[in-house]
């Protein structure tokens, strides 16, 4: 029943969303008024290169092939899917001729490592602290935390990140000012490299962690205050259930339900990178890659990163949907 009534339609929906998303990714750049081939030629000319008419035609057809611009729109579309299934996202133009997939795969571990850790840690810390602060909302420490969150949360992220960078990297010089690891180090599982990565990623991680924990804290606190007024909590209190049990198994457990959905969504967003973080800290992740791709008009790369993030978001939403009944027994897929 579950398979036929829920899982299969849900999977069809999943595939459909991906197909539509990727189709949009295919069409939108093609609707733009500028032609990447002509643009490349113009750039070559601007640099003073002289081209023979025959060589010019050869270059144009080569470029069209690399951009997947051969034939009618429909032929291009089919060819695009064909290449996609082979994992071929074309070659990058701003780092010619590295394949897009290689660039993404190099940047992905940096972004995933940074954002996976901070997203999960921020969620855990924010919800735990917010849960207790919501339950004990009359206590002094809870009000202090609330005030801190209220000040921190509305700070524009780029200002906060930049302030951290200025204070701790520029003036105090406790942390490096840019990069993902010491220059010239080869990525490996050796201790010096890991140490260098941790040291370099500390400030970007903190900038994300503090703000995201503040957001989770505030939402969790509100949800907890609502759950606290539910009659099952009143009933447990009036029956003398120990406070520790009430906080953990009654209040926080129920308040976490909407937060789990939120976590799933923010995990999906990881794969489009943390653009501002990576720019501010010159961090070698997907965000920086996307930024460079955009300013250099590298269509293949933009499309590649977008395809990745479509896959990541739809997949994480699917996973949250499928595992949700584990957390809330009232959700049943029949």
């Amino acid at each position, binding site marked *: 029943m579950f398979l036929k009534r829920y899982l299969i339609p849900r999977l069809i929906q999943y595939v459909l969303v991906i197909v539509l998303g990727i189709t949009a990714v295919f069409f939108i750049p093609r609707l733009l008024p500028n032609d990447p081939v002509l643009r490349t030629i113009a750039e070559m000319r601007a640099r003073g290169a002289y081209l023979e008419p025959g060589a010019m035609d050869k270059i144009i057809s080569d470029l069209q092939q690399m951009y997947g611009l051969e034939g009618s729109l429909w032929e291009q579309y089919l060819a695009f899917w064909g290449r996609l299934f082979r994992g071929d996202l074309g070659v990058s133009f701003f780092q010619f001729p590295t394949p897009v997939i290689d660039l993404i795969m190099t940047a992905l571990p940096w972004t995933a490592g940074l954002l996976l850790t901070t997203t999960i840690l921020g969620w855990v810390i924010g919800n735990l602290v917010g849960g207790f602060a919501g339950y004990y909302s*009359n206590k002094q420490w809870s009000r202090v935390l609330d005030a801190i969150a209220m000040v921190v949360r509305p700070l524009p992220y780029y200002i906060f990140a930049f302030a951290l960078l200025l204070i701790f990297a520029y003036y105090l010089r406790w942390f490096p000012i840019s990069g993902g690891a010491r220059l010239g180090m080869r990525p490996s599982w050796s201790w010096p490299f890991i140490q260098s990565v941790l040291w370099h990623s500390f400030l970007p991680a903190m900038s994300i962690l503090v703000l995201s924990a503040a957001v989770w804290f505030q939402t969790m606190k509100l949800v907890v205050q609502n759950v606290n007024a*539910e*009659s*099952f909590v*009143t*009933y*447990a*209190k*009036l*029956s*003398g*259930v*120990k406070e520790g*049990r009430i906080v953990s*198994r*009654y209040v926080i*457990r*129920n308040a976490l*339900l909407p937060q789990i959905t939120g976590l799933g969504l923010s995990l999906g967003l990881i794969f489009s990178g943390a653009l501002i973080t990576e720019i501010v800290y010159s961090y070698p992740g997907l965000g920086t890659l996307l930024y460079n791709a955009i300013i250099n008009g590298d269509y293949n790369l933009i499309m590649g990163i977008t395809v990745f993030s479509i896959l990541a978001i739809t997949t994480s939403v699917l996973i949250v949907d499928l595992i949700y009944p584990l*957390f*809330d*027994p*009232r959700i049943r897929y029949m």
Partner: protein
Amino acid sequence: MSMKNNTILRTERLHAHYILDVYGKAKVIKAVNDVDLAIQEDEIYGIAGESGCGKSTLLKALAAAVEPPLRIISGRVTYRIAGVEVDVSTLTQEEKRKLRMEYIAYVPQGSMSVLNPVSRIRNTYRDFIESHISVHQKGEAFALAKEHLTELGLPVKILDAYPHQLSGGMRQRVTIALATLLKPRIIIGDEPTTALDVVVQRGVVQLLKDVQAKLKNTIVLVTHDMGVHANIADRIGIMYAGKIVEEAPTEKIFSAPTHPYTHYLINSLPKFGDKSPRESVPGSPPSLANLPTGCPFHPRCPHVMDICKQEMPGYTQVASTHKVACWLVGEGTHGKAA
């Protein structure tokens, strides 16, 4: 009056008010005003009244669950524990926590959300049991729960269910079973039959009666449903605007109601064979934040006199077990409830 003191739960001139801070101005909601109760062992005491008359607040005070913004302004609530009267305001938080369920249990209004929606009934039972008795072996709480359910004639397999999988009536039975698990001396029921259909209500009332007959303990039952009171209560207190305006054994309340408000409550009940339209109390209950002077019922009372608008009468004993606070009957006096 027998010489032996059987009073287990007593309030003396109890005033409990909500003190709210509304934009810097204190707002006082006088939910319980001058209530004297003396509830006996092995008795089912019903508290009746319209919505917004302070019934639930009185229950909070009785259950020693007074939390800001609710405050006890004056008077006291005492429990008789092992023959000794104890003022609940002298108890520590932990002492009060221990008393709950073991000595005084609470049965909430039957609604969807009384049981933790994300845990199985067995886990709720375990949480409640393990908070009160130290369990040495795994499964001991479960065994106790099973035994208790069997004793009450409820199916044991409900322990494996989640609350949303049970019917409203079954959920309420589960709640009653849970509340009575540790054989409390006092059970406080806050509208336990409200939100259930009449057939299920009957079953729930019967279950409460059975439990009381077995434990020979005290039930304080609050409901606006006079039919339920007629069915289960030994004695009834009629509450109006935070005061008990009349108190008598159930049959007296129904056969010889004295307070005009009680008259209205009883006359609004449908009767077999009587097709005349039922009359309800004219007007609506007063705001507890802004009570009328004198007797709070005077704006709605058909027999209102001048004195009613100025002063609240004390209690007059119209019979040894029947007291009423109404100027029609007399000036009355206040004293320690028997």
